[in-house]
């Protein structure tokens, strides 16, 4: 039978980084609360032996305060089933009916990540887990940070008091990971015998936490982190923190656009237009005689051309630049500071400052963003953030399309588009806050230490994004373009265009062909914009088309995610709302010329 090892710990202890090092499989690594909402699992190998490792969402205790933490509690305490009944100790806070279901065997071992740099913060959960008598191994992470703060953790004392093996690690650099792996397999080896017998029972009380801290922490000197402290104060206090936050966001945006455009202009576009397309076109024209069939392959909507050009030269550069910038912000520990700074403003919309995290993720892709709302405190907050993301947060693919469509013609329109999206979000947020029942959880969040992002960790994440984009992004886009080119070349698209032409030509004042993106946009968000590139549109028409594309229905994958995370009826409501808002604003924008001329 496959053995399961749980990797557990408080939030922001470097758990996900350690997970990466142990498994070689990439997951998101970031030091803000609620990162690993959707748990990741991987395999640890040691010669011929292997075990499953599950990255459990970070939690401070076994008393869950949000859905993400419930996942963690459920993984240890079970769902109240028979095989788990012996684990239903008071330590599990009586939470046996968690909302998220999971089919998993009993864990063979828990690897508990204890942050030496924030030693006391992880002890309570450790004591709770020891009470459950599941075999446990402690990875004492970030001893370097503790040293910088002026103390060391006495590993021998800790081992003696708790009766567990303690392995020092530095997950970011990979130090101690090989030793940890050896210990995991030693403990799981059935020949060396039972592993939880030596564990000493210390009641999980706060008195014991303080007793342990006192006995195990040794002061070595004074704290030596003046520059970390200085930057912490600058970034966290309202002054100059808020001004720096605006600056950071502008830099992030400039980085995304600048790096993306650079990748497109100087690398990807020359590569595809110069090296890949000419032989592709020559080869296809040799095989297929000119006509409808050839056009389907290499014509105006030819899927061999658009199906490669759009995903690889228009969208990919921005996917890379977006996740590069996002990783820097995440890994530096800036996100919780941003959440604290913006908390007061978000409160007006009935949202906590931490909802900045799903919003920022949403500018990459709506699916992880909607999953990340699980870390929010109340159902109303989850609903609000989900509606706003579906309505007015363009994913990075769509943003790439907007940049291609608008930046060359009119930067003003581009900025106007984003400003309009924020105004609509604020209005919708105020409306939902006022008319939907529910609470906003009171803000309470830990601000972790600032860290300098590791370039190899960022590079690993980008590599994962690239792989994910090719499988989950490029292939569906290619298929959608292929379907569209058939519709287009066979004249079906024009027929559909005529059917809804009053809406498109009269209300939106766009040419008939602009009906195409309205069909394609259901499949992929950026396809609600990209086909407009090849129509000869006036600037106002471009603005109209972009606004419709922005508010128009989120892609089919997001609708599926929403119905899975909430209810089908909620997904249907979102479809209706987004369509209505898109056409409403599109029509208004189309009539802006009354004011302009």
């Amino acid at each position: 039978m496959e053995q399961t090892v749980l990797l557990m710990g408080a939030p922001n202890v470097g758990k996900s980084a350690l997970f990466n090092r142990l498994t070689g499989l990439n997951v998101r690594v970031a030091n803000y609360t609620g990162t690993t909402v959707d748990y990741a699992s991987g395999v640890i190998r040691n010669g011929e032996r292997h075990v499953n490792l599950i990255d459990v969402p970070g939690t401070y205790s076994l008393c869950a305060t949000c859905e993400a933490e419930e996942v963690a509690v459920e993984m240890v305490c079970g769902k109240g089933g028979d095989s788990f009944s012996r684990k239903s100790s008071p330590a599990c806070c009586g939470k046996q009916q968690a909302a998220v279901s999971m089919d998993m065997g009993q864990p063979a071992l828990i690897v508990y990540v204890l942050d030496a740099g924030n030693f006391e913060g992880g002890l309570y959960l450790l004591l709770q887990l020891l009470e459950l008598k599941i075999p446990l191994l402690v990875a004492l992470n970030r001893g370097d940070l503790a040293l910088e703060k002026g103390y060391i953790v006495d590993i021998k004392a800790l081992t003696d008091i708790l009766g567990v093996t303690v392995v020092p690690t530095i997950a970011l650099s990979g130090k101690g990971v090989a030793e940890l792996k050896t210990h995991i397999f030693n403990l799981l080896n059935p020949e060396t015998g039972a592993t939880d017998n030596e564990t000493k029972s210390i009641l999980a009380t706060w008195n014991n936490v303080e007793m342990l801290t006192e006995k195990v922490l040794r002061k070595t000197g004074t704290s030596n982190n003046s520059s970390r402290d200085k930057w912490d104060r600058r970034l966290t206090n309202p002054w100059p923190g808020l001004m720096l936050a605006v600056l950071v966001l502008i830099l992030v945006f400039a980085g995304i656009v600048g790096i993306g455009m650079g990748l497109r202009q100087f690398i990807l576009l020359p590569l595809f237009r110069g090296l890949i397309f000419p032989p592709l076109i020559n080869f296809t024209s040799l095989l297929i005689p000119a006509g409808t069939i050839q056009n389907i392959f290499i014509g105006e909507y030819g899927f061999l051309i658009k199906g490669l050009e759009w995903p690889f030269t228009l969208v990919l550069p921005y996917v890379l630049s977006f996740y590069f910038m996002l990783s820097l912000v995440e890994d530096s520990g800036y996100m919780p500071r941003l959440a604290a700074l913006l908390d007061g403003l978000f409160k007006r919309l009935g949202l906590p400052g931490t909802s900045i995290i799903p919003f920022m993720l949403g500018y990459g892709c709506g699916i992880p963003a909607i999953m990340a709302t699980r870390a929010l405190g109340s159902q109303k907050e989850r609903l609000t953030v989900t509606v706003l993301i579906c309505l007015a947060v363009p994913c990075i693919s769509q943003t790439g399309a907007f940049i291609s469509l608008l930046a060359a013609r009119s930067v003003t329109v581009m900025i106007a588009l984003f400003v309009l999206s924020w105004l609509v979000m604020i209005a919708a947020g105020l409306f939902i806050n006022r008319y939907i029942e529910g609470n906003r959880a009171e803000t309470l969040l830990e601000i972790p230490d600032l860290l300098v992002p590791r370039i190899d960790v960022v590079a690993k994440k980008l590599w994962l994004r690239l792989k994910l984009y090719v499988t989950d992004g490029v292939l569906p886009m290619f298929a959608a373009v292929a379907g569209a080119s058939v519709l287009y070349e066979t004249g079906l698209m024009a027929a559909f265009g005529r059917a809804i032409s009053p809406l498109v030509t009269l209300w939106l004042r766009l040419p008939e062909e602009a009906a195409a993106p309205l069909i394609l946009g259901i499949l992929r968000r950026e396809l609600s914009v990209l086909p407009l590139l090849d129509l000869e549109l006036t600037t106002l028409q471009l603005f109209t088309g972009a606004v419709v594309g922005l508010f128009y229905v989120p892609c089919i994958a997001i609708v599926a995610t929403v119905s899975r995370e909430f209810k089908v009826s909620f997904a249907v409501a979102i479809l209706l709302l987004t369509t209505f808002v898109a056409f409403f604003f599109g029509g208004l924008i189309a009539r802006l010329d009354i004011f302009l001329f």
Partner: protein
Amino acid sequence: MSVCQERELNSNLQSINLGSLAPGSSARLVSIPEHPLLYSLGLRPGKIIQCCGCQLFGGPLMIKTGDRQVALSKIIAEKIIVDII
């Protein structure tokens, strides 16, 4: 109740709620309301905390306990009783 009675005994200590602690000053935590996270974040009776100020627009109070930093809504802060030191 018990907190108030203790205060009368230590009349040289001034007890206030955390929400009215001046930025920059330190205090010892006396009583903490029931909340699943407060203890875990290091806010426990007897701990020394420092108030680092408040975020704008009615944002949270920034508190330091030892090495840790916590953002705490004012509504929770007002339920926490501290002794100024």
